[in-house]
């Protein structure tokens, strides 16, 4: 399992598991390590460190090292068994509450909360005072019964979320009973959390046992690290100068606790990858070749040979490959492509929002006179919002729920030196008017606005400092079609009125063709076609564009069967030889497209395509063959389908 490999691949879990293993083996093999019985009183009191008694003896004449090694047995037992019982209780109560719901859930939840509110240690002390002197089991039971509640609450929350997941619903629809659903569908998905919970509970148990023994409420006739501390304290070990009598069990407890905690963290991190930190080192960016990075001098934004990747422990995922694009002042450039084609990565790189493990591997981005990729953080702060701004897909979620809309609209302007309240208010009203929201909503909180209105607020904020360029990544995808259309109209109006440039990124080509000046099509990290929107619509040049356009069912005309694009895009971590679309292309030319390094060729005025059908050095006969073959296939596919015939 990749989880296990991941688990043992990190130093944290190795250290934790290693220490635990050493301790376990040592305590089990205690007679081989030390010749002494930990309870034997045959030696003199407070003997110093010596070859016979590595760590001297106690006030009663027991060998301290033997006590430490044998004491680990009970300490580990308490940790393991109490951890196990507490986890079992957590799982049972947590799952029962989440699965049964209703009154059972309410009752269990109340119980959990009562246990969480009760202060843990005093409860343990009171409870164990009643069970005093009965050996180790009462201690284990008391600790288990006081330690399950936290885990139960966490597991209940997880189970509640799992219960609503589609795969659980699918199992219900398939006819699975409750037992199977809990134990085969839900429980395996909670394994990581349960394991982490066990180590957390074990840690709590070890610490509780030590605390109990130390204050003398446990069974002090047993040998555990806790009782060692108790006797050392009671017999004045420190006064006698035998500090190691205290230090050794203390250190043992600390290390055991640390290793439990390390294992807990490690498992938590694997089951919740977002907690992980990236340790991958960023490489230095390739300096652009002399003469490159100039681009079209008239362009507002000029992207040249941009390469962006994600650095993984394996091969680098090259998400954007040698992309060059210009955006003219006042232009709306549409950027279309499917998931994983690199369009969002491009947006993040251009706006300098790319976080590790993402990294710009080469190329340049120039906006007006700013070399965006080489701005210092301070320069970037001054340029961002003022020269360019961003609107992202879920950006309505960027609004702070506890601040009034007004403050959030003011924020960017204040950061750029507008402080006059009247000016701020006037500008905010103006902006709201631009995006079609009543000014009265300035004093609302985000939760009082619908998704569409929140997205308008975000667009208003992006417009606040009249940037020259706004990068919009799927700004309307999460919205319903009608609201989407309204917002697109506002965006179009605003940009024409203010003359700003927009890069509009979406997977919805049909929408893009309607609203863009020019459209760039991305596939597997490359821009495969670039053309004015009307040209792209009327004469798509790249076979991918053609096949993509054909993938949208039409809203008018006769209903005929159409086909999508077979196959899937290549892996971006692989080296791609030739055209990345080769495998799925219906006009491919074997021996050309899968061999030659990909290049971009002019197709018509202002239209380019990265396709060898437009390579003047490829023989026309070969091209004609490829096109003829694709038409042949097309004929077979597009049968007037039976389902439209029997309808009309």
């Amino acid at each position, binding site marked *: 399992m990749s989880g296990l490999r991941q688990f043992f691949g990190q130093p944290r879990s190795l250290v934790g598991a290693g220490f635990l293993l050493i301790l376990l083996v040592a305590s089990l093999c205690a007679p081989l390590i030390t010749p002494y019985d930990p309870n034997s009183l045959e030696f003199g009191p407070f003997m110093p460190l010596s070859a016979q008694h590595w760590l001297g003896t106690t006030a009663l004449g027991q060998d301290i090292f033997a006590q430490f090694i044998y004491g680990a047995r009970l300490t580990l037992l308490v940790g393991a068994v109490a951890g196990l019982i507490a986890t079992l209780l957590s799982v049972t109560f947590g799952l029962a509450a989440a699965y049964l719901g209703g009154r059972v859930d309410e009752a269990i939840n109340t119980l959990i909360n009562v246990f969480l509110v009760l202060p843990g240690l005093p409860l343990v002390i009171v409870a164990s005072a009643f069970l005093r002197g009965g050996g180790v089991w009462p201690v284990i039971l008391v600790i288990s019964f006081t330690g399950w509640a936290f885990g139960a609450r966490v597991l209940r929350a997880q189970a509640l979320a799992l219960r609503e997941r*589609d795969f659980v619903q699918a199992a219900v629809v398939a006819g699975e009973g409750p037992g199977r659903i809990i134990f*085969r569908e839900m429980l395996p998905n909670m394994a990581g959390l349960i394991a982490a919970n066990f180590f957390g509970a074990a840690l709590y148990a070890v610490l509780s046992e030590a605390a109990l023994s130390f204050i003398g409420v446990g069974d002090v006739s047993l040998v555990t690290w806790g009782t060692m501390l108790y006797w050392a304290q009671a017999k004045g070990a420190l006064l006698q100068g035998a500090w190691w009598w205290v230090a050794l069990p203390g250190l043992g407890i600390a290390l055991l606790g640390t290793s439990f905690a390390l294992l807990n963290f490690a498992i938590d991190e694997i089951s919740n990858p977002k907690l992980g930190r990236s340790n991958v080192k960023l490489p230095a960016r390739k300096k652009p070749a002399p003469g490159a990075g100039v681009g079209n001098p008239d362009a507002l934004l000029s992207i040249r040979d941009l390469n962006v990747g994600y650095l993984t422990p394996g091969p680098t995922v090259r998400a954007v490959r040698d992309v060059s694009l210009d955006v003219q002042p006042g232009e709306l450039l549409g950027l279309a492509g499917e998931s994983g084609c690199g369009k969002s990565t491009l947006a993040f790189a251009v706006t300098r929002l790319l976080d590790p493990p993402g990294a710009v591997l080469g190329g340049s981005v120039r906006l007006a006179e700013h070399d965006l990729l080489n701005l210092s953080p301070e320069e970037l702060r001054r340029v961002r919002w003022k020269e360019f701004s961003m609107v992202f897909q879920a950006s309505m979620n960027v609004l702070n729920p506890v601040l009034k809309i007004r403050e959030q609209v003011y924020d960017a302007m204040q950061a750029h030196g507008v402080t006059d309240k009247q000016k701020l208010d006037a500008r905010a009203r103006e902006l709201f008017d631009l995006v079609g929201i009543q000014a009265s909503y300035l004093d609302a909180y985000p939760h009082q606005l619908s998704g569409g209105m929140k997205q308008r607020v975000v667009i208003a904020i992006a417009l606040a400092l009249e940037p020259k360029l706004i990068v919009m990544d799927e700004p309307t995808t999460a919205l*319903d079609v*009608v609201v989407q259309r309204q917002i697109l109209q506002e965006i179009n109006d605003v940009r024409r009125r203010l003359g700003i440039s927009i890069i509009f990124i979406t997977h919805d080509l049909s929408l893009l063709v309607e609203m863009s000046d020019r459209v760039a099509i991305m596939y597997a990290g490359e821009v495969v076609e670039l053309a004015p929107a009307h040209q792209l619509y009327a004469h798509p040049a790249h076979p991918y564009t053609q096949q993509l356009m054909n993938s949208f069912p039409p809203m008018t005309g006769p209903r005929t*069967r159409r086909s999508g694009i077979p196959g899937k895009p290549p892996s971006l971590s692989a080296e791609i030889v030739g055209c990345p679309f080769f495998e799925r292309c219906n006009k491919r030319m074997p021996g050309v497209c899968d061999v030659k390094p990909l290049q971009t060729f002019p197709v018509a005025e202002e239209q380019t395509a990265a396709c060898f059908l437009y390579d003047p050095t490829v023989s026309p006969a070969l091209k004609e063959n490829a096109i003829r073959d694709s038409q042949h296939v097309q004929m077979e596919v597009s049968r007037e389908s039976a389902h439209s015939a029997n309808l009309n």
Partner: protein
Amino acid sequence: MSQPTAPISTNASTPTNTIPNTLEIVNLRKVFGTRGKAGGVVAVNDVSFAIARGEVLGLVGESGSGKSTIARLIARLYTPTSGEIRLNGQPVPSRLGGRALRHLRKNVQMIFQDPYASLNPVHPVSYTLKRPLQIHGLARGDTEEQVNSLLERVGLSPASTYASKRPFELSGGQRQRVGIARALAVRPELILADEPTSALDVSIRLDVMNLMLDLKDQEGLSMLFITHDLAGARYMSDRVAVLYAGTLVEIGPAVEVIDRPQHPYTQLLKSAAPKPDAGLVPETIEARGEVPDLKTLPPGCPFEPRCPHALPECKAGLPRMYDVGEGHTARCILHDPAVQARRGQEVGVSR
């Protein structure tokens, strides 16, 4: 709330023979979040429709329109507040258990929207496909062979390489094919497909839709195809039903409803849909506001506050479904003969 029962009829061209409709729902209603108290959200407001054997009904609406809730009511993931569901003419009892429930589970299957969420990450494909067979006693000697033949049927071949894979090893399109295979495993009569393509990339959507159409033809399945995409509904469906704020506002033959929508809301949906083939001129839509809060729906037509054609009587009560011909009905008072007569020859809803 009482209202006239909508006519339960399917495609007008379907001969009235003895084969009962695979599914009929009559005044189906679901109110969420009451827990004994008054109020609550009316997610599905007395919806009635039928699906004939071998028919695909497209159910179109925006988020919050109640379309997914209807599928989950039919699949009994939710219990209806009131109304009736009939399978093959037989009412499904409101309290379900034992054999009746297993009968429902065997005959009604669901395909979920997000193939990344609908397959359990811990189980290999073979487990996911084997379980329905075992639950319903359909597993013959060699379940492996049955699993392989299911995989082949949904276009995952060679099947043996897919059977042992776990979901994370599959692409979105492949996962959705596994989801379809799971639904087909028990040879159900009705498939509820809840936006089965909207989480997929454009280039593979059509192939998944084509697969569903082929399987429907081969197996004689009936299908509820839920979508927010009018073009997709037109491609897939024999008939289309349009939902707005939990209420059925229009139903009829797919091409009829989408080419000549008769309810102002359907017209709005159509004008808002992207359509590059319309000649690259963005259409300006006439619509006020957004979908209302389901907790504070107006007493009359739910679309009245946004409707460009609203009349005073729209506020009075929920209009009934008016027959506009060709098995096509719309819940709009503009089709009321009295209203039409009063407004002279001018019919507010342009054809």
